[in-house]
């Protein structure tokens, strides 16, 4: 009950954020965005026809009314029909989001788990050659552009000039085996790029926790190194680690999948978004922006609840 009340309050405080995101995006993309009238009217249209189209598009209504309409769409989760295909936006999302999740999840999970593991090793052997090797590797990982990694991995693993083990592009998934074949190269590329940043961040967090007074106390009471690292240090380090993971979720789902999907031609939400950007398909863009904002607020709430679970000092009151 306390939790529910807390979540509710948090959601209310999150409303200004949703309004801000939708307002700015709406202003830029729709209000100042491309005028669709002339794409829809035929040649030599009469003035009435043009007015008719403008009316259909809602261009003749005042800004506030149009924006409120958008908020209503977001609240009822009904974004109308795509400008370019005429398909319902909801059904597009229903089709593409699962593909994106299936594509992005393995790399996301692996990138974070491996990052934490490498960070633990590096922090434990701080100053040792192993630490220097891992940290050197992570700087290299951070310095290679995601785009280059994708292209290079595709050449090396998928193309005929390379090993040719995996499909070059597309998404013809009918079995688990197909699934594995299609996600391997994108996943490897995602992990490669995420690992550099993650390892570095997590190592810094763990090293900071290692310097705490209570760690010295635990040592002074004969705590063995494994217990020290996995019990005393890691539990305290979980707070910043969880925050980072949680807050990267909304970004990874949209931005992370956009490049991979458009490069590999995978019909996920990222590809749909990219296509919507190039064609100016406003209903889809409005849906994506609105949903991301809501996702952010949800993440904000979940993150605080996680805090509570890990850190007894945090009170939800």
């Amino acid at each position, binding site marked *: 009950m306390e939790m529910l009340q807390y979540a509710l309050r948090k959601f209310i405080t999150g409303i200004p*954020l949703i309004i801000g995101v939708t307002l700015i995006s709406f202003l830029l*993309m729709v209000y100042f965005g491309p005028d669709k009238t002339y794409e829809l009217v035929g040649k030599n249209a009469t003035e009435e026809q043009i007015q008719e189209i403008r009316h259909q598009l809602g261009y003749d209504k005042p800004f506030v009314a149009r924006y409120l309409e958008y908020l209503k769409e977001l609240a009822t989760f009904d974004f109308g029909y795509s400008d370019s295909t005429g398909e319902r936006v909801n059904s597009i999302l229903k089709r593409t989001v699962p593909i994106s999740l299936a594509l992005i999840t393995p790399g996301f999970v692996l990138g974070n788990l491996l990052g934490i593991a490498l960070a633990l090793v590096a922090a434990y052997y701080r100053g040792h050659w192993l630490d220097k090797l891992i940290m050197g590797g992570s700087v290299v990982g951070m310095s290679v*552009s995601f785009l280059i990694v994708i292209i290079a991995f595709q050449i090396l693993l998928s193309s005929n000039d390379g090993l040719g083990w995996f499909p070059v592009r597309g998404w013809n998934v009918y079995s688990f085996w197909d699934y594995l074949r299609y996600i391997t190269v994108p996943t490897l590329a995602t992990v490669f790029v995420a690992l550099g940043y993650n390892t570095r961040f997590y190592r810094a967090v763990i090293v900071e926790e290692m310097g705490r007074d209570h760690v010295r106390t635990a040592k002074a009471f004969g705590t063995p190194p494994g217990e020290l690292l996995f019990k005393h240090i890691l539990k305290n380090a979980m707070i910043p680690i969880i925050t980072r993971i949680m807050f990267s979720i909304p970004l990874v789902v949209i931005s992370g999948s956009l490049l991979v999907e458009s490069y590999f031609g995978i019909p996920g939400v990222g590809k749909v978004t990219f296509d919507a950007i190039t064609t100016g398909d406003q209903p889809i*863009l409005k849906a994506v922006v609105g949903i991301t904002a809501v996702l*952010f607020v949800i993440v904000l709430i979940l993150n605080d609840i996680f805090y509570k679970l890990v850190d007894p000092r945090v009170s939800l009151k």
Partner: protein
Amino acid sequence: MNTLAEETSLPKESESLWGKAWYKFRRDRTGMIALGVVIFFMFIALGVWAGLWGSGWSNVGGDMWAGPSPEHWLGTNIIGQDIYSRAIYSTKTAFEVGMVVAILSTILGGILGALSGYFTNSWVDELILWLMGVLDSIPFYLFVAAIAYALQGYPYSMHIAMIATFWTTTARLVRGEVIKLKNFEFVEAARAIGLPQGKIIFRHIMPNTFHILLVQATIVFVGAIKSEVILSFLGLGVVDGVSWGLMIAESTQEVQAGHYSNFLTASTFLFVLVMAFNMFSDSLQDALDPKKVSA
């Protein structure tokens, strides 16, 4: 009236915290090498800017996909342009994007972060925090596209989009530091002598965040160059001229045909610069860390 003049054994030269940091940085071999590489790239960029080299980047002079030759050191691309010149010229583009975005977003982040940190629990802070939250919640590529729509093909919409989103990280860091600093007693001392708020913020507090701003500027620089590549590839980035991102975008068709020169050249330039900058940034951070400097 005093009799107890204290014997103070001070080193001969007075040394500011910057002096100490520079002394420390100079002894960091990795950092110095990285700085050397960055300066070398900057030299290339300045040369392009002065018209000394790279001016032939758009000439359609040779055969398509020619191999390396004395005229075209790294061969030519699909329409016979010299890859070497294009990569050199792109260095200028990269520095332009990096510098503009790094400098402006750092200034913006520094000022807004300082204001929000100094005026915590007031509407100023609330407003800036809200703005940061909003900008962080809009998917980056969508935001770039939105700005591009709104500015209708204005060539700097990518720069504006990056500045508008990259300042938030800097601002958050500065805000945190300012919240810490404003509770330091030297700030209370400044208030006690009657210093106006503006002077307290800009004369006493801000200078103590410069180390964060400097490191953050290098991080933003790298971020801007890397984003430019992806945005240009997606068709949202550099419109006029050439950049490593555009070269890689061109090369995606070429690599399928087995021509790697364009791809490898642009990738290598990009990688070396970004790597050097990252290492430089690391060493800078070590040297500027106030905890380590005062030790």
